[in-house]
C-alpha cells in the first residue's frame, strides 16, 4: 500500500513536471471523454423533451394525415369518424405559418385553426382565460389562445388577456394563455378553424386528432379510422394513421440507436487518445532508462517498476478523463444557454467514459510498463 501511494505521488509529480507534454498527451482523452458525454447528453435530452411532448398528448390519441395533395376532405368528412363506437372525439385542424406582431415585437408562429373540442382531445391546458369555442367558429372571430413563448416574445409578460396583435393583416384579440409545456407547442397560436380556412383560402383539411374511447380501444379506433379514410379516399396510399404510443416507441428506438452510435464514434476518439498515452509512455520509459537502472540496483522489483509506469499511465488517462468531465459540464451549460433548452448531463455516459479511461490507462500503459520492468539493471544503467 505504501508502494502504491509512493508510486502515485511520483506519477503525479512527473505528470506535473512535464506540464505541456502531459497536457498534449491527455488532450486525446479529454476530447474523447467530452465527445462521449456531450453527444450522448444532448441526444438523450432531445429525446426526452420530444418524448414528453408526445406523451403529454396521451396514449389514446391517433393522428390522421392526408398525404395526397389531390384528396380534398372537409371538416364534415372527418366528423363522420364520430359515428364509430371506439372513437370518443375528432379534432380536425389546419396549420398556417405566419408572423405575429405587436408594436415593434414580432415572432414567427404556427397558427393552428382548431375546433371547440381540440383542446380537450389534444390534451392541451389553459393557464388563464378561455379556449376557442364553437361560436368563435360560427362567427369567424379574430380571437386567439397563445403559447407562453409567444406571449413572452410579443408582450414580455404573461398578462396578455384582452391584448391584441396582428397577423396576416388582421388584428386578433387574445382570450386565453396555454400552460407551458416545454415543447414546441409553446410557440403556437390557436385560432378558430374557420378563420384559419379563410387565411389559407381553402376549406380542405389534411390533419386531425382522433381520440379513442379508452387506452384499451386505441387499436380498434385505429382500424375504424383507417377504414373510414379508405372509404373517403378510395386509396390506401393517400393517408396515414399514427398511433401516438407507437410513434413514441419508434422514436425512442431511433434515438437510442443514435446515441449509441454517437457514443461509439466518441469512444473511438478515446481509443486514439489511449494510443497517444502509450506513445508518450514509451518515450518516458526510454528517457528514464537510467532511472529504472538505479531503482533496480537499489532493490526495486520488476513489479515495482511495472506498477510505477502503470500508475503513471492511469494518472494521465484518469486526469484527462476528469478534465474532460469538467469541460463537458461547462460545454453542456453553454450549449444549453445558446440552444435555449434544458440539458442534463447523462451520468451513465460520464461514468462509462471515466471507467473507460481507467481501462485505457491500464491497457495502453501495460506494454510500456512491461518493457520498462523487463530491462536488466546493467543494461539500464549503462545507457545514458
Amino acid at each position: 500500500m505504501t508502494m502504491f501511494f509512493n508510486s502515485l505521488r511520483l506519477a503525479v509529480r512527473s505528470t506535473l513536471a512535464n506540464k505541456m507534454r502531459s497536457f498534449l498527451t491527455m488532450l486525446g482523452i479529454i476530447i474523447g471523454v467530452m465527445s462521449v458525454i456531450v453527444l450522448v447528453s444532448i441526444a438523450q435530452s432531445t429525446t426526452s423533451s420530444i418524448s414528453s411532448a408526445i406523451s403529454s398528448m396521451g396514449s389514446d390519441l391517433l393522428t390522421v394525415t392526408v398525404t395526397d395533395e389531390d384528396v380534398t376532405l372537409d371538416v364534415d368528412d372527418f366528423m363522420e369518424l364520430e359515428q364509430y363506437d371506439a372513437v370518443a372525439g375528432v379534432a380536425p385542424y389546419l396549420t398556417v405559418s405566419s408572423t405575429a406582431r405587436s408594436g415593434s415585437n414580432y415572432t414567427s408562429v404556427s397558427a393552428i385553426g382548431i375546433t371547440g373540442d381540440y383542446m380537450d382531445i389534444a390534451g392541451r391546458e389553459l393557464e388563464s382565460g378561455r379556449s376557442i369555442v364553437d361560436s368563435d367558429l360560427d362567427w369567424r372571430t379574430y380571437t386567439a389562445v397563445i403559447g407562453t413563448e409567444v406571449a413572452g416574445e410579443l408582450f414580455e409578460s404573461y398578462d396578455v388577456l384582452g391584448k391584441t396583435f396582428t397577423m396576416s393583416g388582421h388584428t386578433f384579440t387574445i382570450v386565453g394563455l396555454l400552460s407551458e409545456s416545454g415543447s414546441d407547442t409553446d410557440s403556437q397560436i390557436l385560432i378558430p378553424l374557420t378563420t384559419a380556412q379563410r387565411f389559407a383560402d381553402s376549406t380542405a383539411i389534411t390533419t386531425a386528432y382522433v381520440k379513442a374511447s379508452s387506452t384499451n380501444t386505441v387499436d380498434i379506433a385505429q382500424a375504424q379510422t383507417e377504414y373510414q379514410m379508405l372509404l373517403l379516399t378510395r386509396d390506401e396510399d393517400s393517408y396515414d394513421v399514427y398511433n401516438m404510443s407507437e410513434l413514441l416507441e419508434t422514436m425512442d428506438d431511433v434515438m437510442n440507436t443514435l446515441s449509441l452510435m454517437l457514443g461509439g464514434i466518441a469512444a473511438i476518439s478515446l481509443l486514439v487518445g489511449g494510443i497517444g498515452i502509450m506513445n508518450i509512455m514509451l518515450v518516458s520509459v526510454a528517457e528514464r532508462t537510467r532511472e529504472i537502472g538505479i531503482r533496480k540496483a537499489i532493490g526495486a522489483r520488476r513489479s515495482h517498476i511495472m506498477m510505477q509506469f502503470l500508475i503513471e499511465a492511469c494518472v494521465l488517462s484518469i486526469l484527462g478523463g476528469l478534465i474532460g468531465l469538467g469541460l463537458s459540464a461547462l460545454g453542456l451549460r453553454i450549449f444549453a444557454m445558446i440552444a435555449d433548452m434544458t440539458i442534463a448531463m447523462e451520468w451513465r455516459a460520464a461514468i462509462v467514459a471515466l471507467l473507460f479511461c481507467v481501462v485505457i490507462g491500464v491497457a495502453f500503459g501495460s506494454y510500456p510498463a512491461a518493457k520498462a520492468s523487463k530491462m536488466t539493471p546493467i543494461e539500464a544503467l549503462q545507457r545514458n
Partner: protein
Amino acid sequence: MLLLEHIFKTYYVGDETVHALDDASLHVRQNEFVAICGPSGSGKTTLMNVMGCLDLPDSGRYILDGVNIAECTDKELSLIRSEKIGFVFQQFNLLDSMSALENVELPLIYQKLSQKERMERAKAALEQVGLGNRMQHRPSQLSGGQQQRVAVARALASNSRVILADEPTGNLDSKSGTDIMRLIGRLSQEGYTIMLITHNDEIARQAQRTVYVRDGRLFDSLEEAELV
C-alpha cells in the same frame, strides 16, 4: 562474506568475443576492505556487476552471505540488492527529480518500511555523512562531493553490510575525493565490508588488501598481474 569460485562471463560484441571474467575466484571476509584495481576494460566493472547481483555469471559459483546467487529468482535478487548490498557509483546515480532525503529514502520504500521509520533512517544516514543541513536540496543543487555523499548515505540507510563502490572518486576533484575516501575508511572501521573498484593505485593503497584484474583474471599482487 563473499565467495566467488571460477566465475566466467563472456560478452559478444559484434563478431568479437570478450572474456570479461575468466576463471575469477575471490574470497572477501566480513569487515574486510578490498580494493579491486585494474585498467579500463580489464573486467573490473563486470566483476562489480556480478558481485552486486546486477548481472549473473555464465558459470561458476557466487555465494553472498551464505546465499547461492545462481539459485535465486529475479524477486530474490531484488531483495538481496535491497537489503545486503549498498552501491556507490562513479556517476553518483541519484534521481534528479528528488531531494537528497527522498533519494536516500528510496531503497527503504522497496524494503516496505513505514513512513516514520524511513524518515528516521534516511535522516540519520544523511547526518552520518555530514549532510544534515542539505536534506531538501536536489542533486543538481549539490556539489559533486556532496552528491557522492548522498549516494553513500543511500547505501548506508538500507542497512546493507556490504558496500560496493565503483570508482567513487572518479568524477570528483582531489579535495572531494579525499573526503569521500576518508568517509569510506571510517565506514570500514565501523564494520562494513567494502569493495572498492578503482584504476588508481594510490587510492587502492588505502584498502587492507588489493586484488589486481587483468583481462578478466584476478591476481593477488601487482607483479603477478604484470606478467600477463
